[in-house]
């Protein structure tokens, strides 16, 4: 026995003794279009139902069928809901990537694989379980076309047995996933049973990974951010939606269609209390939203990077003519077409100043599926309060992956429709100037079409307080200054940051959006590994509230976590903070398209701290 062999042997026996309970992650490597997403969601849901903190990350390709796809399910006893780079359990079903998949696994992992792939020849520091999927599938599925699908359900059974997932929870999860389709249920259950039994009979447990019920998910829900966002829009009372399909925002549009059809048809009249239009492109989508917003509707669109670029001209019109609009940007990897099915926070800087001229936009940054919902509600209020486009900057990770969340709260107040003058108001006031700063907050009053005359002429060209066309320099400057004032007013009205101070902290971390959970976990790492206590501020909106500045004053250095190459939030802070504070900012950047993991943040901060 060579020394390395001894080490391996030791590792192995260690495995067999020390159980690892609810603290590992499962990576399923398959081919897309084979329906494995359903199998994976059944697994995810079963763990959720078992009360275990769990997350699911779908790493899928930008095509419909036939390319490699991975699904990573992380169970975390400690409640960490972020992505991990390492997994400990692998299901290797894709011949194309199987070898590389095996090599990425850490020593001691458990690997379930398709027998003909003979992956066990590759390493001996991991535990292999061979499953003859093809042999197992034939008896339960006569239709050869469906076999590649049924194979995927088999691994659910195998994993359930090996990891001790509650069979009833699997059954419940399957039910939930498939609804009332009886035939489908039967066939799927048969496949799961087959896997289970095969594992029971042929795969004695040799790895330490075990799932045990917990009680962490009481009253929680499992939801993706796009569905949550769509529901937020519905409860915000959206009436006009215009969208153009684009990954990863399409499921937001589609959830809107599904729920609106169900819950927003007037009982009495059978009429739709909404209009959803699939526009011909994103220019038209935002154009329709602006038309509708001008006419008084709560209107929105959802898109992703390329769509945002196409909306540049109309966004500037919305800003300058002061028309409310809600725009969801479910960000993906750019530039250009980039990696359409990978996640990134890459559109911040260009969206903040989207459109030529001195344009500035309000942005919201949901940090959870729950906030995708609540910020949808807030976005409509802000758009109408400030009469301007509001961008909700979600991303693929938030939008398309499944997250444990508190239940969605019913709105506690009626929609804020902003400064809209009614017929009565007009009569009372006797006059109306569309762009006059009556209240000193930069926000003017508006009327909506259908209100008695005189109305105002809405335009993207130069105008004075009375909305009349003018090229006068003084009128132009007055108007632009008022718009700047309005933006300043927004500073204190947008969602405030979430701040976690710490008396012993020197170092601060600023994050936003989908990096939230990874930062929470990294803070624990930093405390545990390096005894580095950190304070944390999660930005929830742009323009930045004064608390952001106060935080940067309190801590130094402040690490700004960005999911992009250029450190775009760091850049926005540089533009916004008093210049003397910006030397405090450092950048932690992650931009390979995968969700950010805590380890990346921890390592980066530690190495920057070391290099001080």
């Amino acid at each position, binding site marked *: 026995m060579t020394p390395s062999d001894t080490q391996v042997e030791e590792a192995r026996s260690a495995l067999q003794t020390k159980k690892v309970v609810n603290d590992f992650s499962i990576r399923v490597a398959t081919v897309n279009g084979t329906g494995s997403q359903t199998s994976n969601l059944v697994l995810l849901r079963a763990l959720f139902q078992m009360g275990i903190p769990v997350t699911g990350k779908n790493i899928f390709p930008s095509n419909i069928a036939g390319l490699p796809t991975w699904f990573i399910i992380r169970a975390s006893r400690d409640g960490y809901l972020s992505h991990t780079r390492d997994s400990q359990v692998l299901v290797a079903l894709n011949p194309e990537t199987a070898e590389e998949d095996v090599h990425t696994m850490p020593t001691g992992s458990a690997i379930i694989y398709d027998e003909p792939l003979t992956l066990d020849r590759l390493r001996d520091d991991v535990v292999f379980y061979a499953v003859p999927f093809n042999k197992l599938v034939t008896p339960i599925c006569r239709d050869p076309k469906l076999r590649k699908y049924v194979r995927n359900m088999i691994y659910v059974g195998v994993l359930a047995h090996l990891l001790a997932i509650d069979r009833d929870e699997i059954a419940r999860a399957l039910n939930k996933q498939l609804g009332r389709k009886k035939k489908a249920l039967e066939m799927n259950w048969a496949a799961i049973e087959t896997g289970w039994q095969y594992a029971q009979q042929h795969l004695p447990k040799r790895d330490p990974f075990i799932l045990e019920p917990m009680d962490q998910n009481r009253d929680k829900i499992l939801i993706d951010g796009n569905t949550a966002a769509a529901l937020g829009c519905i409860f915000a009372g959206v009436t006009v939606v215009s969208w153009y399909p684009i990954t990863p925002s399409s499921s937001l549009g589609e959830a809107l269609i599904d729920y609106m059809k169900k819950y927003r048809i007037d009982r009495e009249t059978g009429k739709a209390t909404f209009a959803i239009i699939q526009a011909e492109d994103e220019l038209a989508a935002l*154009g329709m939203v602006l038309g509708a*917003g001008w006419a008084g509707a709560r209107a929105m669109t959802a898109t992703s990077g390329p769509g945002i670029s196409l909306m540049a001209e109309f966004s500037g019109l919305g800003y300058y003519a002061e028309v409310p609009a809600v725009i969801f940007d479910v960000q993906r990897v750019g530039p250009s077409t980039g990696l359409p099915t990978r996640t990134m926070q890459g559109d911040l800087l260009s969206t903040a100043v989207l459109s030529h001229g001195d344009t500035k936009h309000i942005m919201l940054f949901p940090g959870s599926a729950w906030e995708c919902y609540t910020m949808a509600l807030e976005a409509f209020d802000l758009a109408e309060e400030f009469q301007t486009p509001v961008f909700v900057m979600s991303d693929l990770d938030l939008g398309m992956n499944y997250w444990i969340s508190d239940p969605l709260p019913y709105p506690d107040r009626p929609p804020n429709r902003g400064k809209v003058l009614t017929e009565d108001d007009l009569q009372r006031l006797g006059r109306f100037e569309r762009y006059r700063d009556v209240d000193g907050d930069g926000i003017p009053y508006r009327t909506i079409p259908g209100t008695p005359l005189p*109305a105002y002429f809405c335009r993207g060209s130069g105008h004075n307080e009375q909305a009349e066309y003018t090229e006068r320099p003084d009128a132009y400057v007055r108007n632009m200054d008022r718009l700047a004032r309005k933006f300043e007013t927004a500073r204190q009205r947008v969602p405030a940051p979430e701040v976690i101070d710490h008396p012993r902290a020197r170092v601060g971390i600023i994050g936003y959006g989908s990096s939230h959970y990874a930062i929470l976990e990294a803070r624990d790492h930093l405390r545990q590994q390096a005894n580095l206590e950190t304070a944390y501020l999660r930005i929830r909106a742009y323009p930045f509230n004064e608390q952001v500045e106060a935080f940067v004053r309190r801590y130094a250095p402040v690490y700004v976590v960005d999911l992009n190459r250029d450190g775009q939030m760091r850049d926005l802070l540089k533009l916004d903070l008093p210049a003397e504070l910006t030397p405090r900012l450092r950048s932690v950047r992650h931009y390979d398209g995968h969700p950010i993991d805590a380890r990346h943040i921890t390592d980066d901060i530690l190495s920057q701290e070391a290099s001080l």
Partner: protein
Amino acid sequence: MSVTTSSPKLNRIGLPLAAYKGGKTTLCAGCGHNAISERIIEAFFELGVDLQWVAKFSGIGCSSKSPAYFLGGTHAFNGVHGRMPAVATGALLANRRLIGLGVSGDGDTASIGIGQFVHLVRRNVPLIYIVENNGVYGLTKGQFSATADLGSTLRNGVVNDLPPIDICSLSIELGATFVARSFSGDKKQLLALLKAALSHRGLAVLDVISPCVAFNDHEGSTKSYKYVKEHDDPLGDVHFIPSYEDISVNYEPGTTRDIRLHDGSHLLLSKLPEDYDPTDKMAALRMLDDARKKGEHLTGLIYIDTNSKDFIELLNLPDEPLATLPVEKVRPPKEVLDEINESFR
């Protein structure tokens, strides 16, 4: 289509003609667009349209400025270049009670805006859509638009060698439900068509030939360019725009009329006969094609389809405007959210 030309002092809702006027035009004297504004004022006055419900839309161009010059004080949205259809669609869905009137130019519609125009037609959005068609970009000083006639020439000598887009036949091809063409100076016909458009349910496309006195390039303007050079241009100054009188014509259905424009160019208009049946799509296309081959512009109500649903109907919208539905109608009750939350447990 009956034509009313005598205008009483007050219309049926008790308003004088003056109530339908707008701001002072800043377009060139003699510009066809001004004449169209006049007809819009008359049509809305004569039909007694309630101005509170009018919503004017436009893109960018001289033509697109004109909504400031008629139906003053009404609700209006002057958007960006070529994208008026989207804005109008959104607004009209938000409030179905609005009487939508869109004014665009040929550059605004047929060049940059052709994509949105195509989809507007497909959707049959209830909107009067006027193309004030002069074959040039007036506001940017006379470049060709996509409706410029083959062979027309600009002042700098550039010749258009691309075939024009025919707004009417294109609209018919795309399934438009009301397609008409007229001439800015044909008061009687244009007024009648505007009134007809006002009573149409669905999109009404009105392609109105509207000569640009500053940068005309209509059919025969190769000739007109020469003409200008030889007769009328002792100034040699591109910055000078002479003032012209409005052109006005009046001719009978079924006849053809040769119109001489200010710069000496000619325009051949042929008016559909009275017994023409505008419900046959293929016949309409053939009529247009025949006229085109003769170098004529066919005018009149070329095609109409009164059976198709408009976009509001297709979307099954309620009678009340979406924009002002009360919160109870647009925010489902708490039980619904409970049910939804439950579905994610």
